[in-house]
Protein backbone atom coordinates (compact mmCIF):
# COMPACT_ATOMS: atom_id res chain seq x y z
CA UNK A 1 0.00 0.00 0.00
CA UNK A 2 1.64 3.18 -1.15
CA UNK A 3 1.16 6.58 0.43
CA UNK A 4 -0.09 7.68 -2.95
CA UNK A 5 -2.85 5.13 -2.83
CA UNK A 6 -3.89 6.34 0.63
CA UNK A 7 -3.84 9.90 -0.61
CA UNK A 8 -6.02 8.93 -3.56
CA UNK A 9 -8.57 7.23 -1.32
CA UNK A 10 -8.68 10.39 0.79
CA UNK A 11 -9.23 12.47 -2.30
CA UNK A 12 -11.96 10.08 -3.39
CA UNK A 13 -13.64 10.56 0.00
CA UNK A 14 -13.24 14.33 -0.21
CA UNK A 15 -14.93 14.39 -3.61
CA UNK A 16 -17.73 12.22 -2.24
CA UNK A 17 -18.34 14.72 0.56
CA UNK A 18 -18.32 17.53 -1.98
CA UNK A 19 -21.02 15.75 -3.99
CA UNK A 20 -22.98 14.86 -0.88
CA UNK A 21 -23.16 18.50 0.08
CA UNK A 22 -24.55 19.26 -3.37
CA UNK A 23 -27.11 16.45 -3.25
CA UNK A 24 -28.27 17.38 0.22
CA UNK A 25 -28.81 20.97 -0.90
CA UNK A 26 -30.65 19.78 -4.00
CA UNK A 27 -32.94 17.59 -1.93
CA UNK A 28 -34.15 20.86 -0.41
CA UNK A 29 -37.17 20.61 1.81
CA UNK A 30 -37.39 16.85 1.23
CA UNK A 31 -34.20 16.67 3.31
CA UNK A 32 -31.88 13.68 3.27
CA UNK A 33 -30.20 11.09 5.47
CA UNK A 34 -27.13 13.27 5.89
CA UNK A 35 -25.50 11.84 9.03
CA UNK A 36 -25.54 8.15 8.14
CA UNK A 37 -24.49 8.85 4.57
CA UNK A 38 -21.42 10.73 5.73
CA UNK A 39 -20.38 8.26 8.40
CA UNK A 40 -19.51 5.58 5.88
CA UNK A 41 -17.93 7.78 3.21
CA UNK A 42 -14.38 6.72 4.08
CA UNK A 43 -15.47 3.08 4.03
CA UNK A 44 -17.07 3.57 0.61
CA UNK A 45 -14.01 5.45 -0.65
CA UNK A 46 -11.69 2.63 0.43
CA UNK A 47 -13.93 0.01 -1.19
CA UNK A 48 -14.80 1.78 -4.44
CA UNK A 49 -11.57 3.75 -4.65
CA UNK A 50 -9.21 0.87 -4.09
CA UNK A 51 -10.27 -2.50 -2.72
CA UNK A 52 -13.12 -3.57 -4.96
CA UNK A 53 -12.78 -4.82 -8.51
CA UNK A 54 -15.14 -3.27 -10.97
CA UNK A 55 -15.24 -2.67 -14.69
CA UNK A 56 -15.61 1.02 -15.41
CA UNK A 57 -17.09 0.16 -18.82
CA UNK A 58 -19.57 -2.43 -17.60
CA UNK A 59 -21.31 -2.14 -14.22
CA UNK A 60 -22.72 -5.65 -14.75
CA UNK A 61 -19.46 -7.41 -15.49
CA UNK A 62 -20.00 -10.89 -13.99
CA UNK A 63 -16.54 -10.83 -12.42
CA UNK A 64 -17.13 -7.58 -10.52
CA UNK A 65 -17.07 -7.51 -6.74
CA UNK A 66 -20.56 -7.01 -5.34
CA UNK A 67 -21.44 -4.17 -2.99
CA UNK A 68 -24.62 -4.24 -0.92
CA UNK A 69 -25.69 -1.19 1.07
CA UNK A 70 -27.75 -2.93 3.71
CA UNK A 71 -28.22 0.37 5.56
CA UNK A 72 -30.15 1.66 2.56
CA UNK A 73 -30.66 5.14 4.01
CA UNK A 74 -26.93 5.70 3.50
CA UNK A 75 -27.56 6.52 -0.18
CA UNK A 76 -25.59 9.76 -0.12
CA UNK A 77 -22.41 7.80 0.54
CA UNK A 78 -23.39 5.22 -2.08
CA UNK A 79 -24.50 7.41 -4.99
CA UNK A 80 -21.53 9.71 -4.52
CA UNK A 81 -19.19 6.71 -4.77
CA UNK A 82 -20.96 5.44 -7.89
CA UNK A 83 -20.57 8.89 -9.41
CA UNK A 84 -16.91 8.89 -8.53
CA UNK A 85 -16.29 5.65 -10.45
CA UNK A 86 -18.26 6.93 -13.42
CA UNK A 87 -21.45 4.89 -13.09
CA UNK A 88 -23.58 7.93 -12.32
CA UNK A 89 -23.26 11.38 -13.85
CA UNK A 90 -23.49 14.61 -11.89
CA UNK A 91 -26.59 15.39 -13.88
CA UNK A 92 -28.16 12.17 -12.63
CA UNK A 93 -27.07 12.98 -9.08
CA UNK A 94 -28.87 16.31 -9.38
CA UNK A 95 -32.16 14.39 -9.75
CA UNK A 96 -31.72 12.82 -6.29
CA UNK A 97 -35.13 12.35 -4.66
CA UNK A 98 -36.79 14.35 -7.45
CA UNK A 99 -40.04 13.18 -8.95
CA UNK A 100 -39.40 10.40 -11.47
CA UNK A 101 -35.72 10.00 -10.60
CA UNK A 102 -34.19 6.54 -10.27
CA UNK A 103 -32.09 7.90 -7.41
CA UNK A 104 -34.53 7.65 -4.53
CA UNK A 105 -33.97 8.14 -0.84
CA UNK A 106 -33.22 4.44 -0.58
CA UNK A 107 -31.46 2.53 -3.37
CA UNK A 108 -33.63 0.91 -6.01
CA UNK A 109 -32.00 -1.87 -7.98
CA UNK A 110 -30.60 -0.68 -11.31
CA UNK A 111 -27.68 -2.84 -12.20
CA UNK A 112 -26.78 -0.94 -15.34
CA UNK A 113 -26.05 2.00 -13.05
CA UNK A 114 -24.24 -0.06 -10.45
CA UNK A 115 -27.08 -0.20 -7.92
CA UNK A 116 -27.01 -3.87 -7.02
CA UNK A 117 -30.09 -4.22 -4.81
CA UNK A 118 -33.06 -2.31 -3.44
CA UNK A 119 -32.56 -1.80 0.25
CA UNK A 120 -33.94 0.43 2.96
CA UNK A 121 -35.89 -2.05 5.01
CA UNK A 122 -33.19 -2.73 7.57
CA UNK A 123 -31.62 -6.08 8.27
CA UNK A 124 -31.97 -7.62 4.84
CA UNK A 125 -28.66 -6.98 3.11
CA UNK A 126 -26.47 -9.55 4.82
CA UNK A 127 -28.79 -12.41 3.79
CA UNK A 128 -28.62 -11.17 0.19
CA UNK A 129 -24.85 -11.06 0.53
CA UNK A 130 -24.83 -14.65 1.72
CA UNK A 131 -26.87 -15.72 -1.30
CA UNK A 132 -24.50 -13.94 -3.67
CA UNK A 133 -21.44 -15.35 -1.87
CA UNK A 134 -22.83 -18.88 -2.17
CA UNK A 135 -23.48 -18.27 -5.86
CA UNK A 136 -19.81 -17.28 -6.30
CA UNK A 137 -18.64 -20.41 -4.46
CA UNK A 138 -20.92 -22.76 -6.35
CA UNK A 139 -19.93 -21.27 -9.68
CA UNK A 140 -16.26 -21.20 -8.63
CA UNK A 141 -15.93 -17.50 -9.31
CA UNK A 142 -13.45 -15.28 -7.53
CA UNK A 143 -15.49 -12.18 -6.96
CA UNK A 144 -15.96 -10.89 -3.43
CA UNK A 145 -19.04 -9.57 -1.66
CA UNK A 146 -19.09 -6.50 0.60
CA UNK A 147 -22.07 -5.62 2.78
CA UNK A 148 -22.31 -2.38 4.75
CA UNK A 149 -24.66 -2.39 7.74
CA UNK A 150 -25.52 0.23 10.29
CA UNK A 151 -25.18 -0.32 14.01
CA UNK A 152 -28.78 0.68 14.61
CA UNK A 153 -29.64 -1.84 11.91
CA UNK A 154 -28.17 -4.52 14.14
CA UNK A 155 -31.34 -4.24 16.27
CA UNK A 156 -33.00 -6.34 13.56
CA UNK A 157 -33.20 -10.05 14.32
CA UNK A 158 -32.62 -10.95 10.69
CA UNK A 159 -29.09 -9.52 10.97
CA UNK A 160 -28.28 -12.21 13.50
CA UNK A 161 -29.88 -14.98 11.50
CA UNK A 162 -27.48 -14.05 8.73
CA UNK A 163 -24.55 -13.53 11.11
CA UNK A 164 -25.05 -17.08 12.38
CA UNK A 165 -25.37 -18.59 8.92
CA UNK A 166 -22.38 -17.03 7.12
CA UNK A 167 -19.64 -18.75 9.18
CA UNK A 168 -21.61 -22.00 9.12
CA UNK A 169 -21.52 -21.76 5.34
CA UNK A 170 -17.80 -20.97 5.40
CA UNK A 171 -18.21 -17.86 3.26
CA UNK A 172 -14.69 -16.48 3.23
CA UNK A 173 -15.59 -14.41 0.17
CA UNK A 174 -17.98 -12.29 2.23
CA UNK A 175 -17.14 -9.15 4.19
CA UNK A 176 -19.60 -7.38 6.45
CA UNK A 177 -18.73 -3.87 7.55
CA UNK A 178 -20.62 -2.40 10.48
CA UNK A 179 -20.72 1.40 10.31
CA UNK A 180 -20.52 1.89 14.06
CA UNK A 181 -21.57 5.54 14.30
CA UNK A 182 -23.32 4.90 17.61
CA UNK A 183 -26.57 6.61 16.69
CA UNK A 184 -29.86 5.54 15.23
CA UNK A 185 -32.95 7.42 14.18
CA UNK A 186 -34.18 8.78 17.47
CA UNK A 187 -31.16 8.59 19.72
CA UNK A 188 -27.89 6.96 20.57
CA UNK A 189 -27.63 3.18 20.44
CA UNK A 190 -27.42 3.24 24.22
CA UNK A 191 -30.67 5.16 24.51
CA UNK A 192 -32.55 2.99 22.04
CA UNK A 193 -30.97 -0.48 22.16
CA UNK A 194 -27.39 -0.77 23.27
CA UNK A 195 -25.30 -2.91 20.97
CA UNK A 196 -22.39 -3.10 23.41
CA UNK A 197 -19.38 -5.02 22.17
CA UNK A 198 -20.44 -5.86 18.64
CA UNK A 199 -16.98 -7.18 17.75
CA UNK A 200 -17.28 -9.84 20.44
CA UNK A 201 -20.68 -10.78 19.16
CA UNK A 202 -19.35 -11.42 15.66
CA UNK A 203 -16.30 -13.19 17.09
CA UNK A 204 -18.50 -15.53 19.08
CA UNK A 205 -20.39 -16.28 15.88
CA UNK A 206 -17.02 -17.33 14.43
CA UNK A 207 -16.34 -14.42 12.09
CA UNK A 208 -12.84 -13.11 11.39
CA UNK A 209 -13.25 -9.76 13.14
CA UNK A 210 -11.32 -6.52 12.69
CA UNK A 211 -12.13 -3.47 14.77
CA UNK A 212 -10.83 -0.12 13.63
CA UNK A 213 -11.36 3.59 13.11
CA UNK A 214 -13.74 3.83 10.18
CA UNK A 215 -12.28 7.15 9.06
CA UNK A 216 -8.71 5.85 8.96
CA UNK A 217 -8.53 4.78 5.33
CA UNK A 218 -5.14 3.14 5.78
CA UNK A 219 -6.51 0.92 8.55
CA UNK A 220 -9.58 0.23 6.45
CA UNK A 221 -7.47 -0.62 3.44
CA UNK A 222 -5.27 -2.97 5.42
CA UNK A 223 -8.18 -4.79 7.01
CA UNK A 224 -10.11 -5.02 3.77
CA UNK A 225 -7.16 -6.30 1.78
CA UNK A 226 -5.65 -8.54 4.43
CA UNK A 227 -5.36 -12.25 3.75
CA UNK A 228 -8.67 -13.95 4.32
CA UNK A 229 -8.95 -16.63 6.93
CA UNK A 230 -10.00 -19.78 5.12
CA UNK A 231 -13.61 -20.69 5.73
CA UNK A 232 -14.43 -17.56 7.71
CA UNK A 233 -16.40 -14.53 6.64
CA UNK A 234 -14.85 -11.24 7.67
CA UNK A 235 -16.52 -8.61 9.85
CA UNK A 236 -15.14 -5.12 10.14
CA UNK A 237 -16.40 -3.06 13.01
CA UNK A 238 -15.68 0.44 11.82
CA UNK A 239 -16.01 3.10 14.53
CA UNK A 240 -17.29 6.19 12.82
CA UNK A 241 -18.74 9.61 13.47
CA UNK A 242 -22.25 10.26 12.29
CA UNK A 243 -22.25 13.30 10.00
CA UNK A 244 -18.45 13.07 9.58
CA UNK A 245 -16.81 15.86 7.62
CA UNK A 246 -18.80 18.90 8.66
CA UNK A 247 -18.55 20.55 12.05
CA UNK A 248 -22.27 21.26 12.19
CA UNK A 249 -23.31 17.64 11.62
CA UNK A 250 -20.68 15.58 13.37
CA UNK A 251 -22.16 13.58 16.23
CA UNK A 252 -25.37 15.59 16.10
CA UNK A 253 -28.16 13.10 15.59
CA UNK A 254 -30.52 15.82 14.40
CA UNK A 255 -28.67 15.27 11.12
CA UNK A 256 -30.02 11.73 10.83
CA UNK A 257 -32.47 13.21 8.34
CA UNK A 258 -32.42 16.97 7.99
CA UNK A 259 -32.66 19.85 5.57
CA UNK A 260 -29.36 21.43 4.52
CA UNK A 261 -29.87 25.19 4.42
CA UNK A 262 -28.03 27.48 2.03
CA UNK A 263 -26.16 28.96 4.95
CA UNK A 264 -24.89 25.60 6.15
CA UNK A 265 -24.13 24.60 2.57
CA UNK A 266 -21.82 27.64 2.30
CA UNK A 267 -20.22 26.78 5.61
CA UNK A 268 -19.79 23.19 4.41
CA UNK A 269 -18.07 24.41 1.27
CA UNK A 270 -15.64 26.46 3.32
CA UNK A 271 -14.88 23.52 5.59
CA UNK A 272 -14.29 21.31 2.58
CA UNK A 273 -11.91 23.91 1.19
CA UNK A 274 -9.90 23.85 4.40
CA UNK A 275 -9.87 20.04 4.33
CA UNK A 276 -8.62 20.08 0.75
CA UNK A 277 -5.79 22.42 1.60
CA UNK A 278 -4.81 20.24 4.54
CA UNK A 279 -5.00 17.11 2.43
CA UNK A 280 -2.88 18.58 -0.34
CA UNK A 281 -0.29 19.95 2.02
CA UNK A 282 -0.04 16.57 3.71
CA UNK A 283 0.89 15.09 0.34
CA UNK A 284 3.19 17.90 -0.82
Amino acid at each position, binding site marked *: MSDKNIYEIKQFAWRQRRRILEMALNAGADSSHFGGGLSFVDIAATLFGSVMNYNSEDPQDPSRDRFILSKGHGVLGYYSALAEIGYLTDEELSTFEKDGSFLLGHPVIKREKGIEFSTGSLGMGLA*LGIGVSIAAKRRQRDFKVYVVMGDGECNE*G*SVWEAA*LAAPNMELDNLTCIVDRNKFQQTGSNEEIMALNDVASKFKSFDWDVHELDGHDVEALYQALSSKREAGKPRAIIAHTIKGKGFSFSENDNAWHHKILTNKLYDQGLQELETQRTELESSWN
Partner: protein
Amino acid sequence: MELTKKNTNSWSRIGSRATFGTVLYSIAEEHEDLIMLCPDTSTSAGLDRFRKKYPEKYLEVGIAEQNLMGIAAGLASEGFDVFTSTFSPFQTLRCCEQIKVNLGYMKHKVCFVGLASGVVLGKLGYTHCSIEDMAIMRAIPNITVVSPADCGEVAKAVSAALEHNESVYIRLTGGAPSPKIYEEDYDFTIGKAVTLKEGDDITLMATGSMVQVALDAANSLSEQGLSCSVLNIHTIKPIDKEAIERSCANSKLIVSIEEHNVIGGLGSAIAEVKSTLRNAPPQLFFGFQDTYDNSGDYGEVLKRAGLTAEQISEKVTSWWQSEA
Protein backbone atom coordinates in the same frame (compact mmCIF):
# COMPACT_ATOMS: atom_id res chain seq x y z
CA MET B 1 -44.38 -33.07 -16.46
CA GLU B 2 -46.85 -35.50 -17.99
CA LEU B 3 -49.50 -37.09 -15.82
CA THR B 4 -50.22 -40.80 -16.07
CA LYS B 5 -52.50 -43.10 -14.17
CA LYS B 6 -49.44 -44.60 -12.56
CA ASN B 7 -47.75 -41.43 -11.30
CA THR B 8 -50.98 -39.78 -10.19
CA ASN B 9 -51.90 -42.94 -8.24
CA SER B 10 -48.57 -43.02 -6.53
CA TRP B 11 -48.55 -39.28 -5.76
CA SER B 12 -52.06 -39.24 -4.38
CA ARG B 13 -51.02 -41.98 -1.96
CA ILE B 14 -48.10 -39.94 -0.62
CA GLY B 15 -49.85 -36.55 -0.57
CA SER B 16 -48.87 -33.10 -1.80
CA ARG B 17 -45.75 -32.56 0.30
CA ALA B 18 -44.01 -35.79 -0.63
CA THR B 19 -45.16 -35.27 -4.20
CA PHE B 20 -43.35 -31.95 -4.28
CA GLY B 21 -40.10 -33.59 -3.12
CA THR B 22 -40.49 -36.44 -5.57
CA VAL B 23 -41.18 -34.16 -8.50
CA LEU B 24 -38.25 -31.90 -7.69
CA TYR B 25 -36.03 -34.97 -7.49
CA SER B 26 -37.16 -36.09 -10.90
CA ILE B 27 -36.52 -32.75 -12.62
CA ALA B 28 -33.30 -31.83 -10.80
CA GLU B 29 -31.01 -33.52 -13.28
CA GLU B 30 -32.23 -31.51 -16.25
CA HIS B 31 -31.97 -28.13 -14.48
CA GLU B 32 -28.35 -27.29 -13.99
CA ASP B 33 -28.96 -24.11 -12.01
CA LEU B 34 -31.70 -25.46 -9.77
CA ILE B 35 -31.09 -25.02 -6.05
CA MET B 36 -33.38 -26.01 -3.20
CA LEU B 37 -33.21 -24.16 0.14
CA CYS B 38 -34.82 -25.47 3.31
CA PRO B 39 -34.96 -24.13 6.87
CA ASP B 40 -34.63 -27.55 8.55
CA THR B 41 -37.61 -28.93 6.64
CA SER B 42 -36.15 -31.27 4.03
CA THR B 43 -38.00 -34.28 5.45
CA SER B 44 -41.27 -32.37 5.74
CA ALA B 45 -40.99 -31.40 2.06
CA GLY B 46 -40.23 -34.94 0.93
CA LEU B 47 -36.71 -33.94 -0.01
CA ASP B 48 -34.54 -36.49 1.80
CA ARG B 49 -33.75 -38.40 -1.38
CA PHE B 50 -33.13 -35.13 -3.25
CA ARG B 51 -30.77 -33.94 -0.54
CA LYS B 52 -28.75 -37.15 -0.66
CA LYS B 53 -28.56 -37.42 -4.43
CA TYR B 54 -27.97 -33.74 -5.19
CA PRO B 55 -26.02 -32.20 -2.30
CA GLU B 56 -24.73 -29.51 -4.66
CA LYS B 57 -28.31 -28.47 -5.39
CA TYR B 58 -29.42 -28.42 -1.78
CA LEU B 59 -28.77 -25.75 0.84
CA GLU B 60 -29.68 -26.04 4.50
CA VAL B 61 -30.21 -22.62 6.09
CA GLY B 62 -31.41 -23.56 9.57
CA ILE B 63 -34.62 -22.40 11.18
CA ALA B 64 -34.46 -18.81 9.97
CA GLU B 65 -37.03 -17.99 7.35
CA GLN B 66 -36.15 -14.32 6.91
CA ASN B 67 -32.60 -15.36 6.17
CA LEU B 68 -33.94 -18.11 3.91
CA MET B 69 -35.70 -15.64 1.64
CA GLY B 70 -32.77 -13.22 1.59
CA ILE B 71 -30.33 -15.96 0.63
CA ALA B 72 -32.82 -17.25 -1.94
CA ALA B 73 -33.04 -13.81 -3.53
CA GLY B 74 -29.26 -13.39 -3.51
CA LEU B 75 -28.91 -16.68 -5.39
CA ALA B 76 -31.74 -15.78 -7.76
CA SER B 77 -30.02 -12.47 -8.50
CA GLU B 78 -27.05 -14.49 -9.74
CA GLY B 79 -29.19 -16.58 -12.08
CA PHE B 80 -29.99 -19.65 -10.00
CA ASP B 81 -33.41 -21.32 -10.27
CA VAL B 82 -34.32 -21.17 -6.61
CA PHE B 83 -36.91 -23.16 -4.70
CA THR B 84 -37.59 -22.77 -0.99
CA SER B 85 -39.97 -24.74 1.16
CA THR B 86 -41.24 -24.92 4.69
CA PHE B 87 -44.58 -25.05 6.46
CA SER B 88 -46.91 -22.49 5.00
CA PRO B 89 -47.09 -20.01 7.92
CA PHE B 90 -43.31 -19.82 8.09
CA GLN B 91 -42.90 -19.76 4.32
CA THR B 92 -45.19 -16.76 3.96
CA LEU B 93 -45.99 -14.67 7.03
CA ARG B 94 -42.76 -15.21 8.94
CA CYS B 95 -40.72 -13.78 6.08
CA CYS B 96 -43.40 -11.63 4.52
CA GLU B 97 -41.32 -8.50 4.16
CA GLN B 98 -38.39 -10.37 2.67
CA ILE B 99 -40.85 -11.69 0.09
CA LYS B 100 -42.16 -8.19 -0.55
CA VAL B 101 -38.80 -6.48 -0.93
CA ASN B 102 -36.69 -9.22 -2.50
CA LEU B 103 -39.22 -11.00 -4.69
CA GLY B 104 -41.94 -8.41 -5.19
CA TYR B 105 -40.11 -5.08 -5.27
CA MET B 106 -36.80 -6.25 -6.74
CA LYS B 107 -38.39 -9.07 -8.77
CA HIS B 108 -35.80 -11.70 -7.96
CA LYS B 109 -37.50 -14.89 -8.97
CA VAL B 110 -37.97 -17.59 -6.35
CA CYS B 111 -40.48 -20.46 -6.29
CA PHE B 112 -41.56 -20.79 -2.68
CA VAL B 113 -43.61 -23.72 -1.55
CA GLY B 114 -45.86 -23.57 1.51
CA LEU B 115 -46.30 -27.01 3.02
CA ALA B 116 -49.46 -28.17 4.77
CA SER B 117 -51.37 -24.98 4.18
CA GLY B 118 -54.95 -24.71 5.35
CA VAL B 119 -55.81 -26.78 8.41
CA VAL B 120 -54.41 -30.22 7.65
CA LEU B 121 -52.15 -29.84 10.71
CA GLY B 122 -55.14 -28.88 12.85
CA LYS B 123 -54.01 -31.12 15.66
CA LEU B 124 -50.85 -29.05 16.00
CA GLY B 125 -52.80 -25.85 16.47
CA TYR B 126 -53.09 -22.68 14.42
CA THR B 127 -49.41 -21.81 14.67
CA HIS B 128 -49.01 -24.54 12.06
CA CYS B 129 -52.21 -23.89 10.12
CA SER B 130 -52.40 -21.31 7.39
CA ILE B 131 -55.64 -19.59 6.47
CA GLU B 132 -54.15 -16.18 5.69
CA ASP B 133 -51.40 -16.98 3.19
CA MET B 134 -53.28 -16.52 -0.09
CA ALA B 135 -54.66 -13.16 1.00
CA ILE B 136 -51.31 -11.81 2.05
CA MET B 137 -49.23 -13.19 -0.81
CA ARG B 138 -51.86 -12.01 -3.28
CA ALA B 139 -51.43 -8.43 -2.09
CA ILE B 140 -47.74 -8.32 -3.05
CA PRO B 141 -47.08 -7.17 -6.61
CA ASN B 142 -45.05 -9.47 -8.90
CA ILE B 143 -45.98 -12.62 -6.98
CA THR B 144 -48.03 -15.36 -8.63
CA VAL B 145 -50.11 -17.51 -6.27
CA VAL B 146 -50.88 -21.11 -7.25
CA SER B 147 -52.95 -23.53 -5.23
CA PRO B 148 -52.97 -27.00 -6.82
CA ALA B 149 -56.11 -29.13 -6.61
CA ASP B 150 -54.39 -32.48 -6.29
CA CYS B 151 -50.97 -34.09 -6.35
CA GLY B 152 -50.89 -34.33 -10.13
CA GLU B 153 -51.49 -30.61 -10.25
CA VAL B 154 -48.69 -30.10 -7.74
CA ALA B 155 -46.37 -31.71 -10.28
CA LYS B 156 -47.76 -29.51 -13.04
CA ALA B 157 -47.42 -26.40 -10.89
CA VAL B 158 -43.81 -27.10 -9.95
CA SER B 159 -42.78 -27.47 -13.59
CA ALA B 160 -44.78 -24.43 -14.65
CA ALA B 161 -43.42 -22.31 -11.79
CA LEU B 162 -39.87 -23.12 -12.84
CA GLU B 163 -40.58 -21.74 -16.31
CA HIS B 164 -42.69 -18.80 -15.09
CA ASN B 165 -41.37 -15.27 -15.43
CA GLU B 166 -41.90 -14.16 -11.82
CA SER B 167 -41.89 -15.55 -8.31
CA VAL B 168 -44.51 -18.16 -7.57
CA TYR B 169 -46.00 -19.10 -4.25
CA ILE B 170 -47.18 -22.71 -4.43
CA ARG B 171 -49.68 -23.48 -1.72
CA LEU B 172 -49.89 -27.16 -0.82
CA THR B 173 -53.05 -28.41 0.88
CA GLY B 174 -54.57 -31.74 1.76
CA GLY B 175 -53.30 -34.81 3.57
CA ALA B 176 -51.93 -38.18 2.55
CA PRO B 177 -53.46 -40.00 0.88
CA SER B 178 -55.31 -37.27 -0.92
CA PRO B 179 -58.05 -37.43 -3.56
CA LYS B 180 -57.23 -37.51 -7.24
CA ILE B 181 -58.83 -34.95 -9.52
CA TYR B 182 -56.76 -35.75 -12.59
CA GLU B 183 -55.96 -39.23 -13.82
CA GLU B 184 -54.54 -38.27 -17.15
CA ASP B 185 -52.63 -35.40 -18.64
CA TYR B 186 -54.33 -32.04 -19.18
CA ASP B 187 -53.40 -28.50 -20.08
CA PHE B 188 -52.14 -26.67 -17.01
CA THR B 189 -51.42 -23.01 -17.61
CA ILE B 190 -50.72 -20.59 -14.78
CA GLY B 191 -53.61 -18.10 -14.71
CA LYS B 192 -56.09 -20.34 -16.56
CA ALA B 193 -58.85 -21.98 -14.55
CA VAL B 194 -59.92 -25.48 -15.51
CA THR B 195 -63.57 -26.41 -16.03
CA LEU B 196 -64.10 -29.82 -14.47
CA LYS B 197 -67.85 -30.04 -14.88
CA GLU B 198 -70.43 -28.12 -16.88
CA GLY B 199 -73.86 -27.18 -15.57
CA ASP B 200 -76.54 -24.52 -16.04
CA ASP B 201 -77.61 -23.18 -12.66
CA ILE B 202 -74.66 -22.68 -10.37
CA THR B 203 -70.88 -22.44 -10.69
CA LEU B 204 -68.83 -23.81 -7.84
CA MET B 205 -65.39 -22.25 -7.88
CA ALA B 206 -62.82 -23.95 -5.71
CA THR B 207 -59.11 -24.14 -5.16
CA GLY B 208 -56.66 -26.62 -3.64
CA SER B 209 -58.11 -29.33 -1.44
CA MET B 210 -61.60 -27.88 -1.87
CA VAL B 211 -61.81 -28.80 -5.55
CA GLN B 212 -62.69 -32.40 -4.68
CA VAL B 213 -65.21 -31.09 -2.13
CA ALA B 214 -66.75 -28.91 -4.86
CA LEU B 215 -67.05 -31.90 -7.21
CA ASP B 216 -68.74 -33.93 -4.47
CA ALA B 217 -71.04 -31.03 -3.63
CA ALA B 218 -71.95 -30.66 -7.32
CA ASN B 219 -72.92 -34.33 -7.45
CA SER B 220 -75.12 -34.03 -4.45
CA LEU B 221 -76.67 -30.79 -5.76
CA SER B 222 -77.46 -32.49 -9.05
CA GLU B 223 -79.44 -35.04 -7.04
CA GLN B 224 -81.49 -32.08 -5.81
CA GLY B 225 -82.07 -31.10 -9.40
CA LEU B 226 -79.49 -28.30 -9.46
CA SER B 227 -77.11 -28.35 -12.36
CA CYS B 228 -73.60 -27.15 -11.41
CA SER B 229 -70.41 -26.21 -13.16
CA VAL B 230 -67.21 -26.77 -11.24
CA LEU B 231 -64.20 -24.59 -11.87
CA ASN B 232 -60.76 -25.45 -10.53
CA ILE B 233 -59.17 -22.07 -9.93
CA HIS B 234 -55.63 -23.26 -9.33
CA THR B 235 -54.17 -19.79 -9.83
CA ILE B 236 -55.37 -17.25 -7.31
CA LYS B 237 -53.21 -14.56 -8.85
CA PRO B 238 -53.43 -13.64 -11.62
CA ILE B 239 -57.07 -14.67 -11.35
CA ASP B 240 -58.70 -15.96 -14.54
CA LYS B 241 -61.04 -13.03 -15.25
CA GLU B 242 -62.39 -14.50 -18.45
CA ALA B 243 -63.40 -17.75 -16.80
CA ILE B 244 -65.16 -15.84 -14.01
CA GLU B 245 -66.91 -13.56 -16.50
CA ARG B 246 -68.07 -16.60 -18.50
CA SER B 247 -69.38 -18.27 -15.37
CA CYS B 248 -71.17 -15.12 -14.29
CA ALA B 249 -72.85 -14.89 -17.69
CA ASN B 250 -74.00 -18.50 -17.52
CA SER B 251 -74.91 -19.05 -13.85
CA LYS B 252 -77.47 -17.76 -11.42
CA LEU B 253 -75.23 -18.25 -8.42
CA ILE B 254 -71.49 -18.31 -7.80
CA VAL B 255 -70.13 -20.35 -4.91
CA SER B 256 -66.53 -19.98 -3.80
CA ILE B 257 -64.95 -22.70 -1.69
CA GLU B 258 -61.52 -22.45 -0.12
CA GLU B 259 -59.58 -23.86 2.81
CA HIS B 260 -58.66 -20.31 3.80
CA ASN B 261 -60.14 -17.30 5.52
CA VAL B 262 -63.06 -15.90 3.51
CA ILE B 263 -61.24 -12.55 3.67
CA GLY B 264 -58.72 -11.98 0.94
CA GLY B 265 -58.46 -15.39 -0.71
CA LEU B 266 -60.22 -17.06 -3.61
CA GLY B 267 -63.66 -15.74 -2.77
CA SER B 268 -62.37 -12.18 -2.59
CA ALA B 269 -60.43 -12.54 -5.82
CA ILE B 270 -63.60 -13.75 -7.56
CA ALA B 271 -65.69 -10.97 -6.03
CA GLU B 272 -63.19 -8.37 -7.21
CA VAL B 273 -63.82 -9.48 -10.78
CA LYS B 274 -67.54 -9.95 -10.30
CA SER B 275 -68.05 -6.48 -8.85
CA THR B 276 -66.96 -4.96 -12.16
CA LEU B 277 -69.72 -6.77 -14.04
CA ARG B 278 -73.26 -5.59 -14.67
CA ASN B 279 -75.90 -8.00 -13.42
CA ALA B 280 -73.46 -10.48 -11.96
CA PRO B 281 -75.03 -13.25 -9.91
CA PRO B 282 -74.70 -13.29 -6.12
CA GLN B 283 -71.91 -15.24 -4.43
CA LEU B 284 -71.82 -17.54 -1.44
CA PHE B 285 -68.45 -17.65 0.32
CA PHE B 286 -67.32 -20.94 1.89
CA GLY B 287 -64.17 -20.85 3.96
CA PHE B 288 -63.07 -20.00 7.48
CA GLN B 289 -65.18 -17.18 8.83
CA ASP B 290 -62.33 -15.02 10.10
CA THR B 291 -61.81 -16.98 13.32
CA TYR B 292 -59.19 -19.20 14.92
CA ASP B 293 -61.41 -22.06 15.87
CA ASN B 294 -60.34 -24.81 18.24
CA SER B 295 -57.91 -26.97 16.41
CA GLY B 296 -58.30 -30.70 15.91
CA ASP B 297 -58.47 -33.49 13.37
CA TYR B 298 -58.36 -32.24 9.75
CA GLY B 299 -61.80 -33.57 8.86
CA GLU B 300 -63.31 -32.26 12.06
CA VAL B 301 -61.89 -28.78 11.61
CA LEU B 302 -63.22 -28.64 8.06
CA LYS B 303 -66.60 -29.81 9.30
CA ARG B 304 -66.74 -27.17 12.01
CA ALA B 305 -66.05 -24.58 9.33
CA GLY B 306 -68.84 -25.96 7.16
CA LEU B 307 -66.45 -27.13 4.48
CA THR B 308 -67.77 -30.62 3.76
CA ALA B 309 -69.56 -31.38 0.50
CA GLU B 310 -72.70 -32.22 2.41
CA GLN B 311 -72.76 -28.95 4.36
CA ILE B 312 -72.05 -26.93 1.25
CA SER B 313 -74.76 -28.61 -0.81
CA GLU B 314 -77.25 -28.13 2.02
CA LYS B 315 -76.51 -24.43 2.32
CA VAL B 316 -76.58 -23.90 -1.42
CA THR B 317 -79.87 -25.78 -1.71
CA SER B 318 -81.49 -23.76 1.02
CA TRP B 319 -80.26 -20.50 -0.53
CA TRP B 320 -81.64 -21.64 -3.87
CA GLN B 321 -85.02 -22.47 -2.35
CA SER B 322 -85.36 -19.14 -0.61
CA GLU B 323 -83.68 -16.75 -3.08
CA ALA B 324 -83.65 -18.11 -6.60
